[in-house]
């Protein structure tokens, strides 16, 4: 028999008032897996993590950690008795403790002697590259340094489940990618399970083995990064996971991996498919910018261009609707110019454009 999952939430429901914040959430995280929880702010990410950590009691459902039930509607194991470590969005560093004392704190709590805890904490700070700041208090550290201390504190806990609550939300882009790299690295070497809440789709797709999309307290889709990006269940999921244009054209899925689109006079057969429940008639077809390019059989007019450096995004007016096309290099067509374009992939989904 395979070992029980590191985290298993079943039918988890949380409500602070009568309005549920989490509703019937089923989610598992395997022992060495990173699952990203992706959702806009207010979707319940922090609450979900809070339930797993033991900060928030569920109103219904259960949380199991490594097969052990830790939370249900009438029972909640306190956080210190759960095998979890938490990295907080706003760092949650204690203003009265120095960096090294902060990292030593979890060690001291599980009974490591003061000198040994200090030694191990210093080692962790070294691994984070901030050993020189060991004596500083949070007020004397920058945001990125603070979050490294927060990460070191979580690692000192040596838990089998790590909970990251938007750890990079308050960092600038450079620090953000540095920290992401660090965490991906730790994941490869550490082997612990992690639940990573974020509202940044790029981050979620990059760090996670699987991504769970959360909307207003309900899970909309759970899948690998490629699945949620290439095969979103609906338009909302599609927009959450990245840029997407929508064409309203007759589309028919052929087999599992091909789709036939009728664009004006042209009928094209390309890679793609359709979400479960999508009908084959005149439907909503999703196109990621890099699934289309300039040049090809289809007509269009440039409405707007954005030069991004490595590539340029063009918004085209076409008979089938507006579409964003990404093309490598600097802009080659100006506003109002008539161009041609082609499509090599598409995804047919259910529901009216803009609907949920």
């Amino acid at each position, binding site marked *: 028999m395979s070992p029980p999952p590191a985290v298993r939430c079943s039918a988890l429901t949380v409500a602070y008032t009568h309005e549920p914040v989490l509703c019937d959430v089923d989610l598992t995280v395997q022992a060495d897996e990173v699952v990203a929880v992706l959702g806009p702010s207010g979707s319940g990410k922090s609450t979900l993590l809070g339930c797993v950590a*033991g*900060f928030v009691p569920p109103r219904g459902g259960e949380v199991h950690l490594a097969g052990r039930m830790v939370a249900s509607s009438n029972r*909640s194991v306190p956080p*210190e008795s759960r095998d*979890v470590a938490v990295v*907080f969005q706003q760092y949650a560093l*204690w203003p009265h403790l120095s960096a090294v004392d902060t990292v030593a*704190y979890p060690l001291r709590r599980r009974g490591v002697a003061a000198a040994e805890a200090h030694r191990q904490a210093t080692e962790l700070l070294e691994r984070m590259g901030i050993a020189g700041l060991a004596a500083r208090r949070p007020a004397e550290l920058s945001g990125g340094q603070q979050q490294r201390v927060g990460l070191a*504190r979580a690692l000192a*806990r040596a838990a089998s489940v790590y909970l990251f609550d938007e750890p990079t939300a308050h960092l600038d882009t450079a620090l953000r990618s540095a920290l992401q790299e660090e965490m991906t690295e730790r994941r490869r070497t550490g082997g612990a399970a992690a639940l990573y809440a974020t509202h940044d789709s790029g981050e979620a797709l990059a760090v996670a083995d699987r991504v769970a999309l959360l909307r207003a307290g309900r899970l909309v889709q759970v899948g690998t990064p490629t699945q949620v990006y290439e095969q979103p269940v609906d338009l909302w999921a599609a927009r959450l996971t990245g840029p997407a244009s929508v064409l309203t054209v007759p589309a028919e899925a052929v087999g599992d991996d091909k789709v036939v689109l009728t664009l004006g006079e042209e009928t094209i057969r390309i890679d793609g498919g359709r979400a479960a429940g999508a009908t084959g008639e005149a439907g909503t077809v999703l196109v990621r910018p890099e699934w289309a390019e300039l040049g090809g059989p289809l007509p269009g007019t440039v409405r707007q261009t954005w030069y991004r450096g490595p590539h340029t995004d063009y918004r085209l007016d076409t008979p089938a609707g507006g579409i964003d096309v990404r093309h490598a290099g600097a802009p080659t067509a100006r506003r109002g110019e008539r161009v041609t374009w082609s499509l090599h992939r598409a995804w047919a989904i259910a529901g009216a454009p803009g609907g949920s």
Partner: protein
Amino acid sequence: MASRTDTGAAAAPRARSWHGAAIALAAVAVVLLVGFPLAELVATAFAQGAGPLRAVLTGDRALSAVRNTLLTGVVVTGFALVGGTAAALVTERSRAPGRTWLRVGLLVQLVIASFVGALGWAQAYGPGGLTDDLLGFALPGLYGVAGVVTVLSVQGVTLAYVVVAAGLASRVEPDLERAARASGASAWSALRTITLPLLRPTLLAAAALSFVSTVNAFGVPAVLGSPAGFVTVTTRIYSDLILSADPAAFSRVILLASGLVLLTLVVVGAVDLGESVRGAVTRTSAPPGGVPPGVGGRVAAGLLWGYVVLTTVVPLVALVLTALTRAVGLPAVPANWTLRHFREALTGLGGQALGRSVLLALAAATIVVGLGGLLTALRRRVAGRGLSTLATLPFAVPGSALAVGVLLAYGRWLRDTLLLILIAYLAKFWALGHRPIAGAADGQPPDLALAARASGAGPVTALRTVTLPLLRPALAAAWLLVFLAGFDELTMSSLLYGPGSETLAVVILNLQQLGDISVTTALAVILTGVVIAAAALLTVVRRATLVSVWGPSLRDGHKRRLGESLRGLRDSRLR
């Protein structure tokens, strides 16, 4: 600042002359209300020389008053700190059911006048009181040192509770405690290693506040201490000034009052220093509360409910029952109820006194709001800031001492008039009205008025259409706070009243000393009814203030709302 000064060259001279007049007006008010009385007190104390000091230090009775006061202060501070911290942890951290009502229950002690609280305790647990009637149990030593310390401790617990609860909200983010728990700390260990160390400056402030308000307390020792011969500095000042014709008594009053001022300023100054050294605190929009409560949290909440019932509910009920019951000694059953005492209370002296107290409170509130608005308008100027500091100074001066200063300064012309009492109220409560207004004004982004200017409004129009409408709830809150504080004021009124200028609180105290319990309690119930109504109104207005300043983002606003409303109430009870 640069953006605020370039208001256009043409408008500048007119604005300057307006500001000049306003500063002159504020300066005159500060000198008359604050400078003159305090200067008179200090000058008179020095003019006496060392003779009276020697007399006090060697005189048995004055010295015992000093000793009683200091001992009471220390003991009450200890109880207040422990009880207030425990209560704050229960209501702010345990997530026990009914916390909102528990908060209200604790805050009632801030709202009712302290001498009314003492009267209630006497009617509940004293000889012939409610428990004596029902169970044959009277609290031993309620009249005397034990009773004074107990009732002052109950009031001190609430005062400390307010400070610690606000400190928990502003200094200890729930995430900081959660981080400790997620690092393996038990609830107790997180409290010891994280919460309490972070609260240290807050606890110091709470201790100072309890100590200062205890040593300056007059109502409780007057009601429960004096009948048993337990004398404190404040009751000593009262009896020397009001009841004694001995000229030596007057120098003793000056000396004791100056001593109180000195003690208060030293304690408050020491803590203000500590308060300025504070750590940075981050804010989050995390879900409310700490960590799910264990059984302990529910038990603690239950205990706290018991405390509130015993210390607040029972005394208030006893007060009402005594006022309703036909005659002292009869069982308080509906058959014996009557409204006669209320009628009696409102005809004659009591009714006149009620009218005077309402008049005084209305006048004080209205003038203070005007003065507070004036200082707020000037707050960006150096002179304005200096005047603000001076205006808020008397707030730290004990009521007894301030009253003596006002008496020395204006007594020769205004003795036995309501105006004398009004001057004391204005001096004491100016700060009370100034702070909420200045706080709301500071919380208002300067961009709002600038946006009005950029939209074509002149300085006066911008004030009228943008700044003032946004300040309206704060002005109302300030008005109500001063009304609340002035309506049941006892400490200063009892030293300044004369024939024809007795306030409601003074009449209640005098009737109590004469032993007319039924009418005393009826008047106390009327007074408390008005005060509770004003306080309820204040809560509504407070919410409006905070929403107008911070917007309806409740998650974040909750902490501020708690902090702000508690601070206002706390200040209104600092005497």
